[in-house]
Structures are given as C-alpha cells and as structure tokens.
C-alpha cells in the first residue's frame, strides 16, 4: 500500500524541484494539452487516482461497469473483427473488392453505399447525377444486392452496412438475399448504422424529419428482436461527430446522448429495455492522441453502463455493455506526404485495440486524395494484423489500466461527458438539442478552434504545416468511371420492364398504409423489396407520408 501522504509530499517536492530548474532547462512550451486541448500535467502519480475505487469504478473485464472491456478474456479469446469499409461503382465491382478483402484475411464485411442510395434516390434520379457509385456502391433494387453478395455465404460472414435514413430498406434487401441463399434471418450477423440523429448534426444523409425517423428506427428494433435476433440494430455513431471537428469528450457525450434518445423512443414505443438494448452497438473514432483515445473508449463504456443500469433500469448485463466498432480518423490524414498516414493509422489502431474495440476499420493512406487502391487497402489491413500478431497489445486485457495518466484521463472524459449529457437533458434531450442547433454549434466551435491552431502552428501536423517538402502529384489514384451512372440507369430501365408491376404497386401501397398508420414498417418493406420495388420508389412513398427534413443551417 502507498502511504498517500508520503506520495503527496514527494510529488510536491518533485514539482518544486522542477520549477527551480526550469530557468536553466525550460520545457518545450508553456501549456501541454491533449489532442482535444485538455490540459496535461507534467507528471501523474497515485495522488491523481486516489479517489478512484477500483471495484466501483474500474472493476474486472466482462463485469460492470466494463471500464476494462466487455468480454472477460478480450483478445485472448479472439481478435477484434477486422472489418474494412468498402464499396464503390457497381455491385459487380464491389463484389470483387469484397472477395479480395476476404482473401486477404479480413473477417467481416462493411458496405459503403453511394450517396443516392444513402439518401433514398434511384441512380436515374436528377439529384443522383454525378454521384452514382462515387463514395460507395450504387444499390437501386434487390437485383443489385443479389450481385453485391454473389458467392459470399451470408451465414458465414458478418456484414456491417453504413445506411441510415433508408436502413429498413437495405436490411430488408439483405434478408431477402440471404433467403435466396437458403439462410434464415435468424442466422444473420451484422449491423446497420441506422443512426439518424448524427446525420442531422454531422453526416448529412437524412431524409425524413426526426419523429418518423425515430419511428422507423424503433420499428427495426422491434422487428429484429423477434426475426433477426443476432443483428445489431443500430450503430450509434460518434465517428462522424469527431470527424466534423468535436473533441474526444464531445464525441462520447453527443453519441451517448443520441443513445439515450433511442432508448427513450423505444421504451415509449412500448418495448422492454432488455428486449432491444443488448443489440445496440456503437461506433467511435480513433485519433492520434493515443492515451486520450484509450481513455475515451474506457470512459464511454463506464458512462453507458451506468446510464443503462441506473437510469433505464436495465437488468440484463448485455444491456449495460457498450460494444463498439472503431474507425481510424479520416480527418487526421493528410494529402501531403500521404505515406505518413500509414504511421498515423498505426497509432490509431493501437489506441482502438488498447481501448478494447470489438471491430476495426483502418483507413488507407490515400484517403485525403481519393478512394483507396487495393495496395493501400492491403497496407491498412496489414496494420491491424501487425498490431494483432506482433505488438503484444492483444495478449493481456486492458494493459493500460492502472496508469495514473490513463485513469486520470478516463475520469476526466467521463466527467466532461456527463456534464454535456446533463446539459442536453436540460435542453429536452438530444432531438431537441439538435433542433436548437446546440450540438452543431459546439462541434463547429471545436472544428474552427482546431483549424486556427493548425494555421497558427500551435498544433503541428507533420508534412502539412511543418516538415513540408516539394512533392510531385500522387500517381495511380483510384477513379470511378463516370459511365456507372448510365449503367445503373440502364439496369433500372430493364428491371422496370421485367418485373410484375401490379405486384410492385400493391406492395408500395402496403408500405404507404403502414407508414400512415401504426403497423411495423419492416414486413411491408420486405415484401416490396422482394417484388423488386426500387429503393427510390419505397423512399418516395415514405417521403409522401412523412415529409422531408429541412436542415437547420448554423454558422
């Protein structure tokens, strides 16, 4: 046991000694801060963690409050799922990329859809012009989805789909493809992002206003709890909030505040918290400040566990667990000297692993320039494999626990996040706080402060504002052939000519009736998808009933 008074005295003596020598040996700068600009002390000692009660605040892995991780053996059991977000051009092209990734040892798929798909427009819609197949794969109907997963056994892989406003439709397509492969919905593993609130504040692919959007989400919770029991029905995402410029604490706070809103909506819709909460999952960012990021993941688990147990009265331990996917930070990557990004991603990978992630996407070095090539995707995946097999970080559970610094940071992020959550509660919850523009304003202020720090040189970004070199333009970037738009339009024309239109019309009418009434929307959407109604047609029917969200523009 430490004699805390003696340690305290020693620490004070240390500080006094340092202060004396600073005249002769000054420190590099006056203020030291984390990546999120929180103050960093010169030294952390047991004094800084004296208030922490190990059993109450940290505990054991797989046990409440899960500070040390959600499984009792963590990566000694199995590694995190190495899941590379991919998709571009047509379903045929993306299918090839998925097979490449599976051959390279990726252990789960993650589907990137193009913007028209994410916003519920068919590829031949006027607003889709120039966007088809660009940031992801174009999916207009079940016919495209069948090609996308051709030859990929859906009972063997888990699939994450980054789809939000039209999540019901894409999930229905996935269920329908599986059925054609002879795989029942109860055998499916995967995730839909299905997190509309962060679309309003940070990502932008909303369609409908908040109220019907929340209903679509709770309909999915209810449907999946019975029909697709192993599916993660939502991935409550801080990733994009961080990319939009938030701090680490804001990332935790705003994500969990959104989570609270979903739980409240589902409880209000009559669901029992323990029926859906075990399938809620999260999605966080990993930036460069290794220790702050590790602390962030640990704090997020603790905040969520406490909320679910104490505020929502969840009894099932699975409802208390914050399980999360991580992606390395796209906005930290530079267009200058892009090879340096490999190093950034390696640090971020380590942060995610030391923070106990359940799955991970590592960004490719060329992300600030274009979509990644196969070579750069391979390096990104190899980065995970090196951390897994060579670094030793996966050999014991939560190796940074007990670090005076990391535990102090964990406490601080928890306190800051809880203070933000209280503020959002006082504004009437996440939906109201978003409608008022509060969350957006907080993120924008942090983003602007970051940019100003970069421009003043206070924050160094290697290769960008320091250590610059003259560079030749990068070669061999991946380009999406603009012909994709025309190809998709031609496919749609053929589909519409071939399908049973009466069946489509009846199915769309059923979607409309369910949207206008109160019945769960998943069954009629599944029927419409199977009749080869297009994504745009189904979303148009819902636009007609629900209306469209009008963005609150804040500067």
């Amino acid at each position: 046991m430490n004699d805390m008074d003696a340690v305290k005295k020693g620490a004070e003596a240390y500080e006094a000694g340092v202060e004396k020598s600073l005249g002769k040996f000054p420190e590099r700068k006056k203020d030291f801060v984390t990546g999120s600009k929180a103050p960093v002390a010169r030294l952390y000692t047991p004094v800084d963690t004296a208030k922490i009660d190990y059993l109450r605040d940290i505990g054991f892995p797989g046990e409440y409050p899960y500070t040390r991780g959600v499984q009792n053996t963590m990566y000694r059991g199995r590694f995190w799922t190495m899941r590379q977000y991919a998709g571009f051009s047509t379903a045929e092209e993306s299918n090839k990329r998925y097979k490449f990734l599976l051959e390279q040892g990726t252990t789960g798929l993650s589907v990137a859809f193009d913007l028209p798909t994410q916003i519920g427009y068919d590829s031949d819609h006027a607003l889709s012009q120039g966007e088809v197949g660009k940031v992801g794969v174009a999916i207009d109907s079940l016919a495209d989805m069948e090609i996308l997963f051709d030859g990929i056994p859906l009972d063997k892989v888990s699939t994450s789909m980054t789809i939000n406003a039209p999540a019901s439709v894409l999930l229905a397509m996935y269920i329908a493809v599986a059925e054609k492969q002879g795989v029942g919905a109860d055998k499916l593993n995967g995730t839909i992002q299905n997190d509309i609130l962060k679309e309003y504040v940070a990502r932008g692919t909303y369609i409908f206003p908040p109220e019907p959007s929340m209903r679509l989400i709770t309909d999915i919770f209810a449907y999946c709890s019975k029909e697709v029991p192993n599916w993660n029905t939502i991935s409550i995402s801080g990733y994009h909030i961080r990319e939009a410029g938030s701090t680490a604490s804001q990332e935790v706070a705003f994500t969990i505040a959104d989570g609270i809103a979903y739980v409240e909506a589902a409880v209000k819709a009559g669901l029992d918290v323990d029926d859906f909460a075990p399938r809620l999952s999260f999605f966080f960012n990993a930036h460069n400040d290794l220790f702050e990021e590790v602390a962030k993941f640990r704090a997020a688990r603790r905040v969520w566990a406490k909320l679910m147990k104490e505020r929502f009265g969840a009894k099932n331990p699975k409802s208390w667990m914050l399980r999360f996917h991580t992606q390395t930070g796209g906005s930290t990557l530079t267009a200058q000297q892009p090879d340096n990004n490999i190093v950034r991603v390696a640090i971020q990978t380590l942060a995610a692993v030391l923070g106990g992630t359940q799955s991970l996407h590592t960004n490719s070095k060329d992300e600030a320039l274009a979509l990644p090539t196969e070579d750069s995707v391979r390096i990104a995946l190899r980065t995970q494999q090196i951390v897994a097999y060579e670094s030793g970080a996966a050999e014991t559970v939560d190796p940074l626990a007990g670090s005076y610094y990391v535990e102090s940071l964990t406490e601080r992020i928890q306190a800051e996040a809880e203070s933000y959550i209280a503020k959002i509660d006082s504004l009437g919850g996440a939906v109201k706080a978003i409608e008022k523009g509060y969350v957006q304003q907080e993120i924008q202020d942090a983003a602007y402060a970051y940019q100003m720090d970069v421009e003043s040189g206070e924050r160094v970004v290697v290769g960008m504002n320091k250590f610059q070199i003259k560079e030749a333009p990068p070669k061999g970037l991946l380009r999406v052939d603009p012909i994709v738009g025309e190809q998709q339009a031609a496919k749609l024309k053929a589909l519409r000519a071939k399908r049973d239109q009466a069946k489509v019309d009846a199915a769309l009418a059923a979607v409309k009736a369910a949207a206008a009434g109160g019945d769960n929307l998943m069954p009629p959407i599944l029927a419409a998808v199977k009749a080869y109604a297009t994504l745009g047609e189904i979303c148009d029917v819902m636009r007609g009933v629900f209306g469209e969200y009008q963005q609150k523009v804040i500067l």
Partner: protein
Amino acid sequence: MERKIRVLVAKPGLDGHDRGAKVIARALRDAGMEVIYTGLRQTPEQIVGAAIQEDVDVVAMSILSGAHNHLFPRVVDLLKEKGVDDVLVIGGGVIPDDDIPGLKAAGIAEVFTPGTPTSVTIDYIKQNLKRKA
C-alpha cells in the same frame, strides 16, 4: 462605407461533409466578408439562384464526394446563361490534382485541396475579385 466582399459558400450535390465549408465560411467572415452559407444538398440551379439573389462577389463551393467534375462546371455554365460574368467561382474539397486543369478550363478560377490554410483562400479572394468591392 466600403462595401464588404459578399461570398456564397455552397455545398453542391448530396455530399454531407460540411466541416470544411463551415470552417471556411467562418474564416471568411472573421476576415471581414459577408458570408451566406447555403447548407447541404444544393443543386447548381439553387446555388446560382442564391448567388444572384444575394448579389455576391464570390461563389465558393465544397465537394468531398467526387462529384466535382459534374457539379462545379454546371454552376459556371448556369451563371453564364443568366448573364452573370463578374462573379469569382472557386472550389475546394477532396479533388485529385489531375482534375484541376479541367475544372479551371471550365471556369473554376481556383481549386483548394486538403491542407490549404484558410488565409490562402482569403488572400486569393481579395486579390482576384472580378468586381471592385
């Protein structure tokens, strides 16, 4: 009183990445310009309509989705169709170097890629206005 430089910051297309657009908008405002930000999902027609209605000197567009070759030139063309030839049109975002000559030929005066300090954009605007502010 001297008239302030008026800038329309616009997000054409379906792209939702607006961090850069908002940071630029705020930096331009802090540099003393009048800034109007369109918000997301603007068609070229809407952008040109807003530019004319707000009588701006500059249209600054941001795209990170890869649709720049389609959408940026469309805005220039529509401005020309409306007889507007004294508005400076610039763009930014994740735009491959290879695309920049084509965009410039299409009438985009300058293209700012990731890592550009806002001060560079501010100076560029001040020095390249087509109208006298």
